[in-house]
């Protein structure tokens, strides 16, 4: 009956940049491999680590990398490679739990503010903005000042410190989605609050948050390592990478491997989550390619 032979399929006048796929999609793959290796390391640490990470004098002290100790030993004779492998457990735990805390609280705040609008929104977001401008490290320091030094406290501190960021991101996505006609169309259809939030807003907000959360793990890992480096996070003898770096400080000229390998581990982990986040973004939103 009704034919649409004349109409062209929805094709933009400016076409997608095809080169972009080639340019960026390998990043997602590389990121995925790095993260997968990390997860495997963390799970199988007892089986793949050549030595116990905590046993002192597993070898001679401050031995340079050798066949027996691929990454050398530290000042107590502990095997650096084993410590790094076990360290991946701490790193992944801190990264994911901290993001879990900030993402869930931020999502709730941003969603409530964005959906409620009016005074609730203004007041909530103004507070969030102010906290955001304090920067994450200062909020984390304040939390540690309250809770005291320690790895778990550092993790909680990082989680709390990033809430304003996630709240802002969620809020801005909610605003964008809420102003799209499909949302109004659901309102006009008589949809209830629950339906609007859970069937219309959330499914459109969550993909972006997955991207932000993946990228967020890298920020959290960096922050945790930083706090441990400052001595505010992990405590001896925990095999935490940032803490390992800080104990290498006085030995840099004598044992540079103690500084190089933990740093490399942090950088590669962070890079992995960054690349994975970019990759996921690409998959979820082709328009963001080459950004």
């Amino acid at each position, binding site marked *: *009956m*009704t034919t*649409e032979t*004349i*109409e*062209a*399929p*929805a*094709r933009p*006048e*400016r*076409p*997608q*940049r*095809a*080169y972009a796929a080639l340019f960026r999609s390998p990043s997602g793959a590389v990121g995925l491999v790095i993260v997968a290796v990390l997860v495997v390391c963390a799970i199988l640490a007892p089986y793949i680590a050549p030595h116990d990470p905590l046993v002192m004098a597993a070898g001679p002290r401050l031995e340079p990398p050798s066949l027996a100790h691929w990454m050398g030993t530290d000042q107590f004779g502990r095997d650096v490679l084993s410590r790094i492998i076990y360290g991946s457990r701490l790193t992944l735990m801190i990264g994911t739990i901290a993001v879990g805390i900030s993402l869930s609280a931020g999502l709730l705040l941003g969603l409530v503010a964005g959906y409620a609008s009016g005074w609730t929104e*203004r*007041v909530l977001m*103004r507070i969030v903005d102010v906290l955001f401008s304090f920067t994450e490290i200062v909020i984390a320091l304040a939390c540690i000042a309250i809770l005291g030094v320690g790895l778990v406290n550092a993790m909680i501190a990082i989680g709390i410190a990033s809430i304003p960021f996630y709240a802002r991101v969620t809020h801005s996505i909610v605003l964008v989605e809420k102003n*799209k*006609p*499909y*949302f*109004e*169309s*659901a*309102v*006009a*259809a*008589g*949809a*209830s609050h629950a*339906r609007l939030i859970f*069937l*219309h807003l959330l*499914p*459109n907000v969550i993909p972006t948050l997955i991207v932000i959360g993946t990228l967020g793990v890298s920020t959290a890992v960096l922050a945790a390592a930083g706090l441990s480096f400052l001595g505010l996070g992990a405590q001896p003898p925990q095999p935490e990478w940032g803490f390992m770096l800080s104990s290498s400080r006085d030995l840099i000229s004598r044992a540079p491997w103690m500084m190089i390998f933990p740093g490399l581990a942090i950088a590669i982990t962070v890079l992995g989550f960054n690349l994975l986040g970019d990759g996921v973004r690409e998959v979820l939103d082709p328009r963001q390619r080459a950004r």
Partner: protein
Amino acid sequence: MSETLLEVRNLTVSFGRGAGRNVAVNGLSYELARGETLAIVGESGSGKSVSSLALLGLLPRQGAQVEGGQALFNGRDLLTLSDTERRKIRGDRIAMIFQEPMTSLTPVLRIGLQMTEALVEHKGMRQREADEKAREMLRLVELDDPPRRMRQFPHELSGGMRQRVMIAMAMALEPDILIADEPTTALDVTVQAQILDLMRGLKDSFGTAILLITHDMGVVAEMADRVVVMNHGVKVEEGEATALFAEPQAAYTRRLLAAVPRLGALSQSDAPRQVVEAGAPVGKTVLRADGLCKTFAGRGGLFSRGTATVAMSDVSFDLRAGETLALVGESGSGKSTSGRAVLRLIEVDEGQIDLEGTDLRRLGGAALRRARRGMQMVFQDPFASLNPRMNVGRLVAEPMTIHGIARGRDLEDRVVELLERVGLEADHTRRFPHEFSGGQRQRLCIARALGVGPKVIVADEPTSALDVSVQAQVLELMLELQQSLGLAYLFISHDMAVVEEMSHRVAVMREGRIVESGPRRAVLNNPRHPYTSALLAAVPKPDPTAVRGKIPPLDLEKLPMGPLSEVEPGHWVAT
């Protein structure tokens, strides 16, 4: 025939490479003579814009490539010139203006600098000479107080004024060719008429040839000497404008012309065309809006308030079953606000909204949601009005699920029935919105709205985002549904010809007020308000033989904007 200025031969442009290669323009050839206006007309995806950008080397830097062909200008092939040589021609011998005047001027630079830089570059003028020339051009495009305009920044000018600046800027170098890419598409119809007048005048006094790229047959008829019709990157027809409109040869051109709504086609009838035998007659009043007022507070922070804008002021109308009331107006007239207000998608400050005897403004929460069953909406942008993460089955079913109309097997059957009712297929249910074209999506929106058996559908510019041939099909569907189901439409549109085709009654809005309302035939054939007359006069006619004089300027300050008074039964005009 006079001297040929530009000769395009076998131009082929493509995007992407390898498997993703997509030919946008395929073997296009045409000639442009000195002083003539050649219109390249086509729907979206026809390659009309790409072909002209390719001439000037302005294609997006990545992805697009000219695969073959020649474009001879003064004996030189534009497509093989070096960047430097082409740059010397660009802006000097061949100038270009674009569709979006709001974004086509650099926001951080003064108008004066932007107008003079090409003069300094190509003509080697000193800044003072260039300034003098720019002022003279601004005077020619009828902008007041040129010295002040030169010091202003783009954001201080309206869209129409910016397009005048663009034209002045392009014409200042007295180019041989002006390429105008949809120069009036983003403008209101009255402004469009002024800009078209201006372009015609300048063309005659400068002897410039115009390459006009447009989708609008009315603009073509008004401007063009000759026409090239494109479809899917291929030229389907070329000819003198009068001949082409009178006797189109290609089937595509014939379909295209047939789909163009023509103002005046229904001037002898009170109702829209009957597309259903024994359709539902116009019945009793179902919706009544009374004295609606809405003022938007300006954007501001916690401690500041922006300037307020009045979106609606004392807007009243009623709507009967089986009837279409068109709300007509230009951008900022408050017509969309009114449509949203009756659905309570925005809250009005004052007034009553009465749907079949229920005062909607008194309802809250669950009662309001139930009442929404009686009234549904179809939006302008079919690409954004469907939740991208729901499949078609769920989208169409959603309103019925909400109101508990059907479930399970019964619901599935109803969805299929609705899809078929709007001309889609049953097996579309598992697909997602992005797999559909604009027209199909608009059908989906209509199917979604129909599911709950509404009495009233508010249609906010339902076809403005669609190509003209698709528009005709969607309008046809809407007429058919109205006449078989007795639906009442509140039809919001800026397009007078579409309004004539669709409506029984018309309300013309301007700056948040209704300035004239009444039976469509009375208002369109015998407008009593000067603004309505101006709107009607500004509509370009898709007929090259109809000569339109210069449109008399409208004195906006002196338009009557007071309360309505009845000039003949049912016909009200602002005083």
